């Protein structure tokens, strides 16, 4: 996997370079032409005068130079409203995480791989906010465990990923997902991405 760190990624550039080097992921710089197109761009929501105006972090945006390359935005704060706006630009190959998630290296690498492959990585804080907005309604038909599983699917995780995080078996997670979909009246999904998108649509995070 080839990862680009967008120009202006000042705050964490050295830490990210050290991390990517340590786990053996190749890095390209944005500036300079001879470089190949990366599989993933890391974008900083703090960029001064860029994505977030002066020095106030705000709504993230896809990358200008590589508009079609998967992008993972790292931000010192995350908001459901900004996530919804970001997902309006595209729902494939998109990530929006708190910058401190980088500290959990294995999870972060897994999120990079997932987004680079066209998947989604949404911060758990964003998902918690999305769930609050739907609390007054059909979520009442779910048990807390269902909500937890559905929330992790909304983060973009696979069945296996949820199983590891919740220390459950794959088949137990599958059963929870199937019964949650049935209770919410959602059509069973054909694949991992379809499952994520169905939940994001239910949460009104994606159109």
């Amino acid at each position, binding site marked *: 996997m080839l990862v680009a760190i967008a120009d202006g990624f000042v*705050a*964490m550039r050295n*830490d990210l370079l*050290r*991390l990517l080097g*340590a*786990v053996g992921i190749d890095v390209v710089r944005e500036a300079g032409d001879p470089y190949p197109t990366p599989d993933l761009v890391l974008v900083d929501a*703090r960029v001064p005068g860029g994505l977030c105006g002066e*020095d*106030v*972090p*705000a*709504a993230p945006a896809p990358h200008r130079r590589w508009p079609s390359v998967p992008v993972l935005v790292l931000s*010192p*704060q995350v*908001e*459901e*409203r*900004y996530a919804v706006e970001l997902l309006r630009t595209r729902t494939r190959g998109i990530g929006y995480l*708190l*910058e*401190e998630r*980088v*500290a*959990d*290296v*294995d999870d972060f690498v897994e999120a990079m791989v997932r987004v680079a492959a066209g998947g989604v990585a949404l911060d758990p*804080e964003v998902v*918690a*906010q999305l*769930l*609050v*907005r739907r*609390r*007054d309604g059909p979520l009442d038909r779910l048990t807390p465990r269902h909500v937890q599983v559905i929330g992790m699917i909304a983060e973009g995780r696979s069945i296996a990923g949820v199983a590891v995080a919740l220390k459950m078996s794959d088949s137990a997670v599958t059963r929870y997902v199937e019964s949650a979909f049935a209770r919410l009246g959602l059509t069973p999904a054909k694949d991992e991405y379809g499952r994520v998108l169905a939940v994001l649509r239910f949460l009104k995070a994606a159109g």
Partner: protein
Amino acid sequence: MGGGRSAALGRRVEELTASRSGVIDAAAVERRRIQRDLRNETQQRLTSLSVNLGIALATNPDLPPAVRETVAQAHEQAKQSLVELRDLIRGIHPEVLDERGLDAALSGLAARTPLPVRLRVDVRRRAPRAVEAVAYAVVAEALANAVRHARAGLVEVVVELTASRLRVTVRDDGCGGARLSAGSGLRGAAQRARSVDGTLQVHSPPGGPTTIVADLPC
């Protein structure tokens, strides 16, 4: 004589109104500066610290158990400090409130409250920024109160904007007994409501439930 006295009083009211609004503005500017410094310096450094501890853990599988345990604890503590710092920074004044308004800001607040919160925000235009900031502070304080004291199971937050007023109602099903006593957070929220000529009322009989209503002209 009476006319002169009333004119003088009128001037005094104008002066006090102007100086009060100046004090409120200056306090807001100062809050934003503190917030920026915390975010751009303290939070950044702490993030870097936890990332580097994370790298140390992830890339050194053969650390002696005692060393690994110590590094893992430092890693956890750094991450926990970041959670607390972000709460503090956002509590000073959430940027999303200025950029996207009450609806967006309150969903973040509700999601971070360790109680189920039902949120209904019926606001079709933006209220003045100072009024929005007070409304946000009232909800934050009412939720904190429900978490700390009320032993509540559910909180309901309703925000409605009419032609001339912003009305905030926070109801919890807890044990009641909330007071506007000196030094309490609710007293601070009531003072902030008064700073925009609004009112804050607490109805909280022993045994509950508690209803807090802020009525803010705008």
